[in-house]
């Protein structure tokens, strides 16, 4: 093997391991911080306690896990179709000038800080949703805004994936008189499936990890939600809300919720990527 290749191999593999190590280090750190609580309180109490009142020794995380899942999955349910449609729009439906604009707009959307989304949701959207009852700070508002936030992730990756679909196949299909949607559905989407799936997973994990906007919009009450209009607190919001003030044992409990969040993410990632493994 030439020296340059050897160097490339070593550097790239070391980089890959380094990238992977980041997550291990973070996990290790979370474990270290969470251990005191896990030893003292035990895992089961996080699911069986009466409520979440850490200062009074009640540590039920279940409502927060549910709220986290509801908002994240809901966000992906909104962002998935819109993002994929937006990728297809750019390549197959938009007039060229509009396609360029659409792309720019989506890229711009990707960079708007979550606080700005949160602010917009709080000042503009929540009062509108308050017409449905309550304060307007509930899971629905958080889900909608979260959906908008992760939309660019799906859209940009779908756009790339669609762009990579082989042109010959598309032309071949067109030459058989297949209509636009048939080409998209039968040729383009199957070809770009793995790229789109990657976008959706990334969006889901991003939704699970988002903190600030949800904190500003979800209402943050720790109760098992009964509808989308119930307020709820996600695991991240919980950490952000309480960590600054938490004393040692409380702090450790918050790390447990961080750990649980990461476990949830890992399970989802592993299950989904098992099923949607691209065929090559």
């Amino acid at each position, binding site marked *: 093997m030439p020296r340059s290749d050897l160097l490339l191999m070593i550097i790239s593999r070391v980089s890959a391991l380094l990238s992977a190590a980041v997550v291990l280090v973070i996990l290790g750190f979370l474990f270290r911080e969470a251990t005191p609580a896990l030893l003292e309180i035990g895992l089961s109490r996080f699911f069986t306690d009466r409520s979440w009142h850490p200062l009074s020794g009640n540590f039920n995380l279940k409502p927060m896990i549910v709220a986290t899942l509801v908002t994240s999955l809901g966000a992906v349910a909104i962002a998935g179709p819109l993002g994929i449609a937006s990728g297809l729009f750019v390549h197959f439906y938009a007039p*060229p000038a509009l396609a360029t604009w659409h792309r720019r707009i989506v890229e711009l959307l990707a960079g708007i800080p979550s606080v700005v989304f949160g602010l917009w949701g709080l000042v503009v959207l929540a009062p509108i949703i308050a017409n449905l009852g309550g304060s307007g700070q509930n899971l629905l508002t958080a889900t909608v805004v979260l959906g908008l936030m992760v939309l660019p992730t799906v859209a940009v990756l779908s756009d790339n994936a669609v762009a990579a679909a*082989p042109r*010959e*196949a*598309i*032309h*071949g*299909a*067109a*030459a*058989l*008189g*297949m*209509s636009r949607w*048939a080409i998209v559905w*039968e*040729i383009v989407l*199957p*070809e770009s499936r793995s790229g789109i799936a990657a976008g959706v997973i990334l969006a889901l994990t991003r939704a699970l990890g988002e903190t600030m906007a949800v904190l500003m919009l979800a209402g943050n009450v720790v109760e098992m939600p009964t509808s989308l209009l119930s307020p709820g607190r996600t695991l991240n919001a919980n950490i952000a809300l309480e960590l600054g003030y938490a004393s040692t044992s409380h702090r450790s409990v918050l790390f447990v919720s961080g750990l649980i969040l990461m476990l949830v993410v890992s399970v989802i990632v592993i299950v989904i990527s098992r099923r949607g493994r691209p065929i090559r």
Partner: protein
Amino acid sequence: MISSENLSVSYHGRTVLRNASVAANPGRVLALVGPSGCGKSSFLAALNRMTDLIPGANVTGQISFDGRPIDRVFSSRTELRRQVGMIFQKPNPFAMSIRRNIELALREHGLGNRDELRQITERALRDVSLWDEVQDRLDQSALELSGGQQQRLCIARAIALKPQVLLMDEPCSALDPIAAERVEQLIQSMREHYTIIIVTHNLGQARRLADHVAVFWTRGGVGEIVEYGPTEALFEASSNEIVKSYLSGERG
């Protein structure tokens, strides 16, 4: 009858084909010959509006079908392309099973129930002499076929739709002689029912197959048709020097 009048094609403003006027008739084969890069593929793509798919491509001039503007004859691009089939230079099977490659467009055009689809598929594969090779792996990916097999599959896919016009862009250039001959025979047998326009670099093939030949040439960087007429007349007694020298070289 499909015909073009003063058809010009440009890419991003650069004209690559100028004022091409030819006509092709049912039951007849028209061959387009000429050196590389003179716009044959571009001409073909303009006929069934595949140029719409190429960014920067622009077509001017008139295309008629049975004497009427093609846009009036066919209600839509899809109908046009269904009736004016096309086979490409590079084989382009879809990344799906061999069977679905053929059935896909059939279903799309609402042709046939399950049994009929099977029959049409088998018929089409037999027509291109692929049946024996693939009948026991119809559900495997078409991408695993060799280049020649892939191209024959693409031809099968197109003729399964029974189009009125068939545009072929060097359909045999990826085939071995035996398969190429079968396709030639196929074209011969189809000529009664179809209008066929074929781009070929094989002058022998052009001579054997075509009733009419259009010779393309590049002049000043722009392609054009330098002569168009009955095959034998052109091959035997062209008055045009370029054409003469090109066609006489029965090489390749």
